[in-house]
């Protein structure tokens, strides 16, 4: 069965997909996406204060592992990057580095008000106010702190998006790579 949705995503985004991979993706797309959504491993990286609400989420009260999600130690092993709260420039550099180390497909969830527009730190000299200028974000969770329930809801939505093939942040990153890189270079004086 040809999977129409996957085809639309890959063609719409203008990303080069070689023929073999394309066929493979069409034939097993649904199953692969199902497996991906049911086993989202997140990078163990608390980039901001939102990390505090991840702990209840991972432990007995809300138990994220029910959905097959659990923290993984290195970016190489993970699928999901959580930006938990405000992003300092110094951290952003590490976040981008972490993001680029993750294998495709990969997803980004931005947590709390701060990555959306700066939140309470909108006039701080070190926090970047809009995360999506530097990294593609798949889903935002508003609020400070977002409650565990809303985080679970966001993960649920992300899973639906993955199943429908709408979670295309990593494809957008490839498509607009030059623009993202240009923005990143504008705020970092030097890379390393």
């Amino acid at each position: 069965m040809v999977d129409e949705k996957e085809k639309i995503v890959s063609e719409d985004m203008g990303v080069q997909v070689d023929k073999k991979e394309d066929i493979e993706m069409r034939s097993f797309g649904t199953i692969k996406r199902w497996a991906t959504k049911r086993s989202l491993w997140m990078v163990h990286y608390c980039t901001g204060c939102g990390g505090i609400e991840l702990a209840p989420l991972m432990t007995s009260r809300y138990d994220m592992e029910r959905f097959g999600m659990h923290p993984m130690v290195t970016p190489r092993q993970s699928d999901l990057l959580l930006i938990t709260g405000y992003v300092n420039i110094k951290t952003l550099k590490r976040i981008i580095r972490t993001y680029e180390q993750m294998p495709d497909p990969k997803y980004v969830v931005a947590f709390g008000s701060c990555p959306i527009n700066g939140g309470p730190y909108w006039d701080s000299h070190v926090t970047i106010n809009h995360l999506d200028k530097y990294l593609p974000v798949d889903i935002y969770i508003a609020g400070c702190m977002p409650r565990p329930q809303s985080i679970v809801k966001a993960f649920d939505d992300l899973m639906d998006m993955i199943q429908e093939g709408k979670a295309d942040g990593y494809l957008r990153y490839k498509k607009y790579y030059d623009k993202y890189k240009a923005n990143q270079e504008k705020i970092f004086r030097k890379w390393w």
Partner: protein
Amino acid sequence: MSQTKTIDLFFGPQHPGITGNFSVRVTVDGDTVVKAQVIPGFLHRGFEKLMEMRHWIQGPALICRICVPDPDHSETGYATAVERLAGIEVPERGRYIRSLMLEMSRLSAYLFYFGGYAGSIGLYTVGQWGVGDRDYILDLFEELTGARVYHIFNFPGGPRWDTPPGFEDKVDKLMDFLEKRLKEFDKLYFNNRVFIKRARGTAPMTKAYAQKMEVTGPNARATGWAIDVRKDDPYAAYPDLDFDIITQKEGDNYARVIQRRMEFEQSIDLIRQITRKLRKMPRGNVRVTPNPLHWKIPPGEAYGAVESSKGELGYYVVSDGGIGPYRMQARGPSISHGVQVYEEMVVGQRVADVAALMFSLDVCPPDIDR
């Protein structure tokens, strides 16, 4: 060949052996650390600058974000400093509610701490239980303040409002539950032979060293040095409460963990004392904050400190007579034990104890970065 080969290991910022977003670069010779360099700053937000652009009353909304696991101490530290500067006396009930919140916050921070240290040596069950139990404390916070983590409740002048009816009973019930749980933690964790073997004798800190390096809080008390801001520079309702300073002797990882465990029990006791008093007190009068929209404080400076779960957390506030602070500076407890002390103590330890030492010292990176 006399020169040995050393490897540089990066602990963090993306690493599970780090207490948050923080980084340590350790140089390892074989399995032993020969040099360590702490790299903070990933959580810098410039609170001190932001505060200069806010009103006095906007402070708590920002300040609570300084140390995430323990936000109430940040709020109260700022509130105490501003009250001292403005010469405000908080009503008795307000002081008691404040103390109640602080001790509950301490309990939740310690539950986090237990899980953190246990996680660093691989005993994840403690973390799962501890953080799960912590959630019941957060539920009570939610009932009292409306928020789980950042409460924005302890304003300069007193807590925002009085406790809801029946709150004291719920707190007491939770304390009974936590006391019961602590016995299970004893079995699983504090009396675990592998834990004792791992922690005892690891990275000992002497009393003289703690005094030399200005270490405060439970880390200092674990070396046998009886200091406590609650006694030395009393705030909230602590002058009226009955408690002693608990100390340990050895100052190693084991003593540091057990110190927290003892203080956990003490906090439960303090909370019971507070709820007993709160029941007897007339309700209503908790806050005396002036109208915040044109609240000006005469020029001057003041320092207010609290004993947070990590050590002395203080705020130095300067006013030039305006509607907001002219300058505010925070003294995070981790600035002493998280930077220089950690860098010196980790030398000579095994790679396996780099994370364990960091968790046992309870380094809170946003304290340092602010």
